[in-house]
């Protein structure tokens, strides 16, 4: 990893579909070198995945998401890892973090409707061993996700020519 790799990551994080040629000229590197660097970073899983940030509500699919706080009784020898890995395997769980504060784990779960999310919490999560307490926060509106604002705003306008 060097400065050039970091620059590639910055550019791809902003636009994962930036054409290789443009990426290469922007960094003043040969295309095949950039390609090789990206391949190496994919292989070492620095780049986890190329994906799209979707506004599902606009797509007419009003899924329901919730942030769920969990208090955990840690296991001897494993701490939180084992239970966290079990939780992470549910397809409904989109993100999962160990956090400081009153709760121990925080996860983001998504379902087709409210019914699925509440059944997921009450039937799958809450009864699991080592889970002592849950607090579920239904997400009512998304303002920003993955660094992308989900609301429209008219920016200022620049004069077409200034010196």
């Amino acid at each position, binding site marked *: 990893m060097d400065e050039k790799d970091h*620059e590639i990551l*910055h*550019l791809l994080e902003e636009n994962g579909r930036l054409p290789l040629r*443009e990426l290469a*000229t*922007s*960094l*003043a590197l040969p295309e095949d070198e950039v390609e090789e660097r990206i391949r190496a970073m994919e292989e070492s899983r620095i780049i986890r995945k190329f994906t799209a940030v979707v506004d599902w509500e606009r797509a007419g699919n009003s899924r329901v998401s919730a942030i769920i706080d969990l208090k955990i009784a840690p296991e001897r020898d494993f701490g939180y890892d084992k239970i966290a890995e079990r939780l992470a395997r549910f397809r409904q769980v989109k993100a999962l973090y160990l956090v400081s504060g009153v709760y121990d784990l925080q996860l983001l779960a998504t379902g087709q409707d409210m019914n699925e999310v509440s059944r997921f919490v009450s039937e799958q999560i809450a009864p699991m061993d080592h889970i002592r307490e849950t607090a579920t926060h239904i997400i009512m509106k998304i303002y920003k996700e993955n660094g992308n604002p989900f609301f429209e705003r008219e*920016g*200022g306008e*620049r*004069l*077409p*020519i*200034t*010196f």
Partner: protein
Amino acid sequence: MREYGSARARAIPPSGIRRFFDLLLTMEDVISLGVGEPDFETPWNVAEAGIYAIEQGHTSYTSNKGLLSLRQAVARDLSMRYGISYDPEEEIVITSGVSEAADIAIRALVDPGDEVLVAEPSYVSYSPCVTLAGGRPVPVSCHEKDEFRLTPEGLMEKVTRKSRVLVMNFPNNPTGGIMGTDEINAIAEVVVDHDLLVISDEVYSELTYEGTHVAVASHPELWDRTITMNGFSKAYAMTGWRIGYLCAPKQISELALKIHQYVMLCAPIMGQMAAIEALRNGEEEKNAMVREYRHRRNFFVEGLNRIGLTCHLPRGAFYAFPSVASTGLSDLEFAERLLTEKQVAVVPGSVFGETGRDHLRCAYAVSREDLGTALKRMEEFLSGLSRE
């Protein structure tokens, strides 16, 4: 009919591209590479500090010199980045942008009849300010073969017994040229020998893409004869806030302050408070913007050279300055036809002085997408030309 107005104001030539402007305003779907300001918005923490200042009732005048806390922050910043030190109590004046700083600096140093050497191609305001001060602007050419640096030979050619002041701006608008330590050393001798004072507009200093910016005043023999000007517009995307500053040894800064207090009184307080936040917590966003400009520069300049407009690699600011000499069109003709035929606006180089003739100033402070489209349209225009 009697001619109204002062001889000095009348002596300033009208803009040579009025017709070009009028044309531009009638056009639609134009991609403009003619904008001399960042396309980013002011970082939110900085804007929010300005809003908070208003909410807290900070809507008054400040000291003529500007808020002491801002002057102290500027002094720290200049010392840390460029190794130049100024006393925030006596040697720094906060101005309404570098434009105001340039005007008051010139008026503080120039007497009627004085010759003022202006390194060209140059930003458009210096020479008119010299004329308004009763001085005579004398262009000093910077050439493409020198990557648009100011050279001692160029200076020697134009310096006379009447020369008092040298105005220079590196990183340069419109060429993107910069001056390193060696180049500043080289001109220092001429400056000292001819007892010139230097007004150095360094507003693009943070937009330096290879190496770090060298301040003119960091030369030990130049500090006491230099007015350093800088500001927040370019580095922190704060053009509309109008906050710049001027630094000089007390004897000189006091003169500039006298003029500033009568023409501007002070720079707007909410802008000054936002500027303090920019210096405190703006580094990361600034670096991200600089990184993006550098990427766009590489992409755009490679593109210009590929389509046949030769362009040196600009090492600072956010302008590319390609030559149109090979097309057989003048810079003005090229710009007008590119605008009407392909809806891409660029600024003809001759606007920035005779040395800029046959060049175009293209600002790459626009989105990558627009840069790509502009390049494509320019390529089409050029291939159309070659079939004529």
